[in-house]
Structures are given as structure tokens and as C-alpha cells.
């Protein structure tokens, strides 16, 4: 087929441009040496799921919220915000490079709390970004360019799969600190402290603010406190990734507690926020990147450099999602409604966790499934081994990533029984 195509081109070229000898027309392509990129493991799960014809199939791969009918959920406050925006008939002029100011301001307030001293003193800068990924990317580029010490980034083990390639592409070395304990399916607090105590001065440590992805394992407040003190002692720069504020416990203040605590303790943090999950604005790409600086003057300098970084990537960010988020955050009735809806989503997830465990018990499973309830947020590290995951794929049409991670959002009251039955079958 390829050869046929080439010769067709050669013939037509020969007819149209007699001056160009056939020999000079490259039969080869510029792209002959381009390797086929490996398929994205998470998307691969979805592809396999789509092909499966089993009516009981379950997609527990991608991290997007589903309602109890297994359908995508557009928040009511989002629809209302959209209607309000449509009625205003606004223009479509370019946003500033740093994005919609009303959005950035509200985004920072949401994370830090309205009364935060940082916001009052103007010593932070928040720019609108292309959701969480875009925020991390801008952050990685900024650190690579301006961090005035040799920069290694320490990620928790494990971390979101995309963290590593993002930082690496910005020229940053990746290292890890112990985090997940596979024996308990919980937090290896001692292991984490041990590793953190050895991280060199001025390195960067990445922390998941809440609802750790992929494990769902979060430190308790007392543990966060010890980590904050140790990190301060080690003089590390803290980069918080907060993609699930509100989505974890259902309470936005509780979910942001770690971020606020660290700031209170004197850490000038860097923060990535996403509104993909907590506002269901996945495809609108709404996020923020914040740098807490020493003072307002430094914040101004940092802001100017962030703009220089952003301009050659995408010039300025998209309006639609930021406008929706800003409308919700800045309109009291909509904000109130949003808080309720976020709580609703988080509560459904928590309920599914509880139902899964009680169903497993009813199936007769003798394993300890407490971690399913102890973990928080969209994801659950089940502790299932790769062979068991494969059996779930092949025998039960249940799809998840090989590490045993399930997206609890894909569980409904209608299919939790089947899920428990299947997990029990492969683990008994």
C-alpha cells in the first residue's frame, strides 16, 4: 500500500514538474526514523474496554467522575454559570497571558482561604493555566530556568504517571521518596520521613495536597505536621499538586488544609490546581499555577517571567472554562451550590468504597479490605496483583490499570455487587 502511494505521487509529480528529475524526488520520507510512540497505558485500558462486548463490563481506568448511572456528570452550577455567561454576550478578545484575572484571584482564594495573609500582602502570583498538566508544565519550566540551585525533584513513590515525563522534559532530574506501603496498602510514614531526611538542601519535593493519585493514601494531619517540620529543616522547596480540592473529603477547606498549614509554617510553596474534577470541567482545561514569594516585589518579577514562559507555548489561555469557574467562585448562590455538588460527588465515592467492602465481606472474602475505606478520593490502590488484574480483564471484563488502581468513580450501586464478586473470585 505504501509503495503504491509513493509511485502515484511520483507519477503525478512527474507530470506537473518536469524540471524535477524522478531521482531527486525522495522516495523516502522525512519521518522514516520516527519510532512509533508507545500507547498510553491508561488510554489503552479504555480502548480495550470499548472493544469488549460483555454487557457487564466495567471501566475502572480513567479518572473522570461518573454518576450512579455510570454517566458523565455536568454540575448544575456549571449549567447555570454557562447560561449566565451566554446571556451576557461577551466578546472573545484575547485574555492576558496570565489569564482571566477574576479567575486567578478566586482560584488562589479557594486554595489558600480568603483571609490568608499571603493574599492580603500580595506576595503571591497566580496565573491561569491549561488545567493541572499545564500548571505543572509551566511550573517545571519556571523552576528549570530560575531555581538558583541544582534542581532535583522528589516525587512520592508512586506518583501520577505524567509527573515524571513533564519534569524530565523540562530538564529536571527525578528522584523518589518512599510513600506507599504495599504491605498495609497505606502510608509508609516512617519510610517517608527517613527518605525526606536525606533529601539534599534546596531540592524540590512534590506533595499531593489531598487524594493522592494513584494510591488514595493521604497523610493524617499529625503526619503532615511532622513532614512540614522536617521539610523546613531540610530547606526543601515544596511543590503542591492539588487536583482534587473538595473532591476528596467533600470539604474544600479540609482538603486544602495541608497547603494552608505549610504556608502558615513559613514554607513559600508552589502550587498547581486543577478544576477538572471538582467542577467537572475536564475538557475545558481550567487550572492555576501559584508561586508564594517573599514579598510583592518578588511576586511581580516572578509574574513577568511566567508570562515570558507561557507566550511561546500557547500565547494566552482559553476563556470558556475559566469564565465558568470564575462565575461559580464569585457568585455566592452558585458557589454555595457548587460546594453542595462537590460534597455530593465525594459522598458518592465514599459510599461506593463502603459498599464495595461490605459486598466483599458478604461474598465471603477473608482479606482485609479496610484500605479501600481508608483511602480517599477518586482512586483506590486495591492491592491486586498484575495476574489478578489480568484475570479481571479477561474473565470478568473489568478494566483497570496493571498496578491494581481502580477509579472508584466508575463504581455504581448497580455494579458494585458484580465488582465485589469478581474481585473475590480472583483473590480467594
Amino acid at each position, binding site marked *: *500500500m505504501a509503495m503504491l*502511494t*509513493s509511485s502515484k*505521487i*511520483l507519477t*503525478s*509529480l512527474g507530470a*506537473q*514538474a518536469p*524540471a*524535477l528529475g524522478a531521482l*531527486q524526488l525522495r522516495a523516502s*520520507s*522525512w*519521518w*522514516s*526514523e*520516527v519510532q*512509533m*510512540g508507545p500507547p498510553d497505558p491508561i488510554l489503552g485500558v479504555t480502548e480495550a474496554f470499548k472493544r469488549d462486548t460483555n454487557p457487564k463490563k466495567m471501566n475502572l481506568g*480513567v479518572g*473522570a467522575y461518573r454518576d450512579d448511572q455510570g454517566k458523565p456528570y*455536568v454540575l448544575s452550577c456549571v*449549567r447555570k454559570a454557562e447560561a449566565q455567561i*451566554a446571556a451576557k454576550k461577551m466578546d*472573545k*478578545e*484575547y*485574555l492576558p*497571558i496570565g489569564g482571566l484575572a477574576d479567575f486567578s484571584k478566586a482560584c488562589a482564594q479557594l486554595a489558600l482561604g480568603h483571609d490568608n495573609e499571603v493574599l492580603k500582602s500580595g506576595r503571591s502570583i497566580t496565573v491561569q493555566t*491549561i*488545567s*493541572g*498538566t*499545564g500548571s505543572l*508544565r509551566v511550573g517545571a519550566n519556571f523552576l528549570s530556568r*530560575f531555581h*538558583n*540551585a541544582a534542581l532535583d525533584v522528589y516525587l512520592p513513590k508512586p506518583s501520577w504517571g505524567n509527573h515524571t*515525563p513533564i519534569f524530565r522534559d523540562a530538564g529536571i532530574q527525578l528522584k523518589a521518596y518512599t510513600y506507599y506501603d504495599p504491605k498495609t496498602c497505606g502510608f509508609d510514614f516512617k519510610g517517608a520521613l527517613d527518605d525526606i531526611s536525606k533529601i539534599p538542601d*534546596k531540592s524540590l519535593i512534590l506533595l499531593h495536597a489531598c487524594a493522592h493519585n494513584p494510591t488514595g493514601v493521604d497523610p493524617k494531619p499529625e503526619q503532615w505536621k511532622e513532614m512540614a517540620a522536617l521539610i523546613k529543616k531540610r530547606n526543601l522547596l515544596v511543590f503542591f499538586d492539588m487536583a482534587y480540592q473538595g473532591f476528596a473529603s467533600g470539604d474544600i477547606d479540609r482538603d486544602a488544609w495541608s497547603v494552608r498549614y505549610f504556608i502558615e509554617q513559613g514554607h513559600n510553596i508552589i502550587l498547581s490546581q486543577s478544576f477538572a474534577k471538582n467542577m467537572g470541567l475536564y*475538557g*475545558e*482545561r481550567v487550572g492555576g499555577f501559584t508561586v508564594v514569594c*517573599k514579598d510583592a516585589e*518578588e511576586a511581580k*518579577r516572578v509574574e*513577568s*517571567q511566567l*508570562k*515570558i*514562559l507561557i*507566550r*511561546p*507555548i*500557547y*500565547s*494566552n489561555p*482559553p476563556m470558556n*472554562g475559566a469564565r465558568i469557574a470564575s462565575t461559580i467562585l464569585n457568585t455566592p448562590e452558585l458557589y454555595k451550590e457548587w460546594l453542595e455538588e462537590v460534597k455530593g460527588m465525594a459522598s458518592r465515592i465514599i459510599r461506593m468504597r463502603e459498599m464495595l467492602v461490605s459486598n466483599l465481606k458478604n461474598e465471603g472474602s477473608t482479606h482485609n479490605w479496610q484500605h479501600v475505606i481508608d483511602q480517599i478520593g477518586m482512586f483506590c490502590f486495591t492491592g491486586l496483583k498484575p495476574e489478578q488484574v489480568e484475570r479481571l480483564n479477561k474473565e470478568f471484563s473489568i478494566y483497570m490499570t496493571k498496578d491494581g488502581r481502580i477509579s472508584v468513580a466508575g463504581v455504581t450501586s448497580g455494579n458494585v455487587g458484580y465488582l465485589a464478586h469478581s474481585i473475590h473470585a480472583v483473590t480467594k
Partner: protein
Amino acid sequence: MSIFGEVPLAAPVAVFKLTADFREDQSPNKVNLGVGAYRTDECQPWVLPVVKKVEKIIVEDHSLNHEYLPILGLPEFRSSASKIALGADSPAISENRVGAVQCLGGTGALKIGAEFLRRWYNGIDNTKTPVYVSAPTWENHNAVFSNAGFEDIRPYKYWDGEKRGLDLAGLLDDLESAPEHSIFVLHACAHNPTGTDPTQDQWKQIADIMKRKNLFAFFDSAYQGFASGNLDQDAWAIRYFVSHGFELFCAQSFSKNFGLYNERVGNLTVVAKDQDKLNHVLSQMEKIVRITWSNPPSQGARLVAITLNSPELFAEWKDNVKTMADRVLLMRAQLKEKLKSLGTPGTWEHITEQIGMFSFTGLNPKQVEYMIKEKHIFLMASGRINMCGLTSKNIDYVAESIHETVTRIQ
């Protein structure tokens, strides 16, 4: 001691600073001829009627949601956008060797293309591969390519300041002497900032040399439809290259021709020798996208896809585009007439010979400064004006001001 203690204050991006200065200016006569965005004759932004229609369709369709798009973007957007550039009947499309990546505006498309080329174009490390951009060019081209890791970004001769037109001999000369495999960023139409495009015959000469010297064509198409008012005419150069067997990239922007500036709607069209190569290229672009923005924004792409895929809406859109292009052509004609009737020193034919949103007036930096400070008319230091900033109400004032400036300041 802050880790950011030594972060210097960066200079603001010139074109945005100009608008900021314009906003602060108190003069009732002020005119903004800076940023490249369309304005109506009332000097207002214009949301295209077809866009308003489709936005309404989208917001009222509750079957639509906000789920993630695929990494490469909305399929119906990508394919219809590529058809706009290459023509629906393009043999390359029917041969299944055309693909695309939905990107964040034209900038995003250039970015993904540049990142891909640096990694995969000619061997796996193209940091030293020369990238040629026109002299002058859109100010962000340099930054896009250098941030993608290219270390050798060079100008190719383009604008002849004396004759106020294309320096064809210089351009062809630079093509001839470029190292093999060099990358050339070509403006598909309505060159930014000069408004000066090669003729069809000149494009043929350019293509000849590029083919012979194995130079890579990376088209930047930000004004299709906006230049002549006709989509096909504005895409002639791209289609010529494709029909002559070039593998190429085309970074398309829908900011201007759809007026969707802030929704960041762009498309990187990829033309490869065959489908297999195309798939390899797209698979690697997917990896680049994933570590840059993961997946693109949904709203603008949805809007464009709905429009392009509906015969009535598509016709309405073409009409809206022609409205914009026609107003620009009218302002060009009128500005030239007024300058001539004022007897303004110099030649002003270039005002109507140039095409698209911008005109390189030929005003020098001192004259530009005078225009801004004394006449409160804001334009870029290069002498570039945005024709869309001209209206029936301010065109006399602008013409008189240019006249005054050129007579007083040399």
C-alpha cells in the same frame, strides 16, 4: 534567602504593552493600531453572527458534556480544519496521509510542531538544525522555536524596506545557501507584520528551490480567508506545496477568521508521504501534547467543527469572513486615497498592495514615537499598523497624522 531572589523583571511583551499604554492614554482622539484583532467600523470587537448561533446551539444542548477530549483533540474538528487548509478534494487527504493535532491556537500548533521537529525531524537531535524565519516575522516565532530547543534560528531575507515590497532575490538567495534539511517557517498568506505575500509565480520559485535543497516547509496559516476574503485563494501556497509532494506542517489558527481569539482554537496539519509515517508522527506528537497540556480545550473546537460540518453554517461563516476581509480592503483603499490626496511625501501603493490585517507603513521608529506621543496613535515600533483599527470615523485623523509625521520627522 529566596530561591527566586535573582529572578529578573522581564520586559513586557511589546504588543500587549502597547495596548496597555493605549488604555491609559486620556486623549479623546486616541487610536489603537497595535494588536492584531478585528474591529468593526465602530471600533468594537466582533463576535461573528455564525459563532453566536453555534454558541447558542452548544449551550442549549444538554446532551453535550465537558469530558476530556482525546489527547490529539476533537476528531471532527481536526479533519474539517485540515480540509479547510488543503481543500476537501485534496488527493493527500484521500490518500490517507493527512493528519492533525488540535492545539491551543496557532501558537500551540507551532509549539507542538517545533517540539516534534527538534526530537524527530532529521535524526533524533535537531538542536543544531537551522530554523529560518522571515526578516521580519511575528515576534513570537523566535521564542517558540528557541524554547523548543533549536539553537540556530536565522532570518531569511523578506522585506525590502526601500522598495517597500518583497526582496525576492534575497529570499531565493537565502534558500539556495541554506544548509540542506533546514526548516523554513513560511507565512501561508497575509504575512505578519509586512502584509506582503509572494505571488503565485514567486511561490513556485520558492518551492522549486526548497524541493531541490531538501528544505522543510512549516507553514504558519493564521489568516486564511481573512486576506483575500476567499479561503481557497488564501490557501493556494500550501496546496501548491502539497501537490508537489512536500511533506509539511501547517499551523492553523482560527483566532482571526472565526474571531475565536480567547478560545485558543488551532490545528497542526501534518502531511506525510504515507499513512504509516503519518501514524508514527502523530503517535510522537501525542506524547509531546501529554506533557504540555494533556488534551486541548473543548469549546472552541466544538464550535468550529459544528460550523464547518454544516453546509448552511459553513456558508454563513464564509460570508462573515468576507465581511471582515472586505472592510479591511476598504480601509486600505481609503487610507491610500487620503494620503495621496494630502500629497503625503513618499509612495503609498504598498498600502493596497499589501494584504491581510497588517500594513508595514514604512514609518521609522522616530516617526512612530511621534505618532504615539503627539498624535496618540498607537502602532508598533516597526511601523506595523493593524488596518482593523481604522474606521470611517478615525481614518481622516490617522491620514492627517501620518502626513504631519512624515513631513515633520525624517
